[in-house]
């Protein structure tokens, strides 16, 4: 994956470039909004990571201008202004995701990978997800594993659906809270963990290979370990 980091803090940018490289991606860096805009245009990037506060051209203007040019590259907004309004404003300007500073790199990496995958995905969602012997039918609202039906609560279904949609990718707790529950606030406790462990009890219990994996310090991942 090729990504462009538009960030004026040289130290933070250098850290990000290094960390993304270690994760197996190619990251370029633009130190201000204008250069970021120029580099993003036709740069062939899979994802842009744009800071909100930038010299010469602020982050939201960069995104707005790119969208006016018809550029569809997914954009993740980084912002020190961690507030509800700011997230709404960022998404309204054409951003695809929003991450308040300070953030954990694992959170940023997970979100960027999901964004880049979205770009390559077909326009229409598949009606079924399959991971190993686990099968989720979105139309019939049915989940089976090795042919046996698993009965799930509606929210558990949506949780599994999201995890399977991003199978092979790390999904963080915040991403789950945002995408499955549509909550953008801090739930104070490990609520998500409790929900995932309930789901895990239904999906993985009695099978040799677990499907739902905990990625330490990051989140969860659905992956077939049988093969």
């Amino acid at each position: 994956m090729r990504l462009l980091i538009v960030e004026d803090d040289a130290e933070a940018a250098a850290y990000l470039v290094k960390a993304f490289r270690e994760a197996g991606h190619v990251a370029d860096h633009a130190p201000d909004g204008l250069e970021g805009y120029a580099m993003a245009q036709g740069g062939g990037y899979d994802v842009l990571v744009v800071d909100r506060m930038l010299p010469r051209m602020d982050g939201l203007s960069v995104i707005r201008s790119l969208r006016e040019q018809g550029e569809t590259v997914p954009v993740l907004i980084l912002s020190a202004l961690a507030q509800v309004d700011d997230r709404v404003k960022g998404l309204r300007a054409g951003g695809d995701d929003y991450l308040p500073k300070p953030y954990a790199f694992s959170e940023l990496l997970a979100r960027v990978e999901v964004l880049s995958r979205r770009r390559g995905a077909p326009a229409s969602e598949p009606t079924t997800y399959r991971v190993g012997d686990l099968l989720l039918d979105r139309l019939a609202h049915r989940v089976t594993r090795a042919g046996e039906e698993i009965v799930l609560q509606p929210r558990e279904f949506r949780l599994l659906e999201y995890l399977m949609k991003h199978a092979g990718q790390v999904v963080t707790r915040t991403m789950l809270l945002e995408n499955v529950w549509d909550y953008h606030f801090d739930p104070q406790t490990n609520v998500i963990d409790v929900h995932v462990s309930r789901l895990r009890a239904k999906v993985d219990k009695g099978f040799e290979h677990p499907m739902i994996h905990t990625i330490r310090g990051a989140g969860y991942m659905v992956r077939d370990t049988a093969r």
Partner: protein
Amino acid sequence: MTQLADGRAAEAQQPSGRLRFLPHLVRTTAFKLTAIYLVVFAAFAIFVLGYVAWNAKNLLDDQIRSTIDAEIQGLAEQQRLGGIRRLVQVIERRSRGPGASLYLVTTPLGERIAGNIEALPPGTLDRQGESEIEYARSSETLDQTNHAIVRVFMLPAGFRLLVGRDVEERERLRVVIKRAAGWSFLLVVVLGCFAGWFVARRVLKRIDGMNDTARSIMAGDLKGRLAIAGTGDELDRLAGNLNAMLDRIGELMSGMQQVTDNIAHDLKTPLTRLRNRAEEALRTAQSPEQLRAALDGSIEEADGLIRVFNALLMIARLETRQISDSMAPLDLAEIVDGLSELYEPLAEEAGLTLSASVEPGLSLTGNRELIGQALANLIDNALKYGKPEGEAPATVVVTANRVGDMVELGVADHGAGIPEADRGRALERFVRLDQSRSKPGFGLGLALASAVAHLHGGTIRLSDNAPGLAIVMSLPIVPPPVDRPVTEAPQGSTSQPDAAGFQSA
């Protein structure tokens, strides 16, 4: 050379005391006011004196003219009765008498026949009618000239008659008025300067006193207050208001101080834990796995700290009302049911039953994230502390009801509850009551919920659930405009209306 230049520069920088004082004086309001008064008074005096002088001159001129007219009529009568000879006789007789009247009769060639004028500007006698001239009296020396208004007549056979009147009276009046103008100008200047000096001394002294106090307050004497003279004038009112402002700033500062102290104190513990953990790992870890586990633990600890800071920032921003266009109609059933569904597994883990009951069709205008966060905090709080000790049912009940034009969101548990005396304090930042010390948390959850309620124009109140705690957020269905003035202090007092509301309930 350079030394010389330096010396001059130094001199220029430090002018003598008087020179330094002058621009200071010129800049004062008292000086400017005095200058304006002086100009106004001087203009007034000039106008009054000028008006008087002008009118007096006109009056005198009119008098002189009518006198001349009368004389001419008399002389014309004499001439009609006895010709030039009679006229000359009369004029000779009149000329001998003292007075301001002037006469002259000349031959067609301009030779004097009779009269009391010795010298005239040339050509005066050729101009018929009235004119104002300089002349010399026959009895006086020739170089001493006087002014007069005269009228010249052509008599039969080319004789000329001049009748006039000296205007010395008018000149004397002019001198008097000039002198009056001079004196009054002097008086205006002296009185004006004195008044200005008096006002400046009185007012400047008080203002300088205020400035001194302000400087000493800025220098750190926060207890200093401006002196009030007791005259009740505008300066006193200004000083009173400034003192009230200083009191308010003092209150806010001590509030801030308390919050800062609490923050420092409460963040020290996790930071120390973080540091100790890292140190311990450095000292004892034998394998990369052990180091990794220690690092993971450190990151977790740091994440917790970041969450605390986020919550603090959020409370601060809510209190300064930096949330703008994010209010929208909300379906309360969706929020309450969603949240109780989210926390239900957690409740089960804690051995509690979480149930929700929402009046159908209930909605209000607000920010979904904030109200969700506030309610989540209340539920989280109830799950942490709501475990009953005795026979009471192990339930946490979330309710939403309409009361008048308010929506009441309630979370009630049957735990230990909060003693009545502590209920107001429980809403403050970083306040963790004794019985909660052993549980995880930072004491920000209720403070944040309270800030959210206030932002929406509502209140939050704590009451006894007998046994247990019932927290009710009372929110208006349509919140008041966001930009209403902030009347509460940021710390502590947010809970006061609630405490009062509770006692009266």
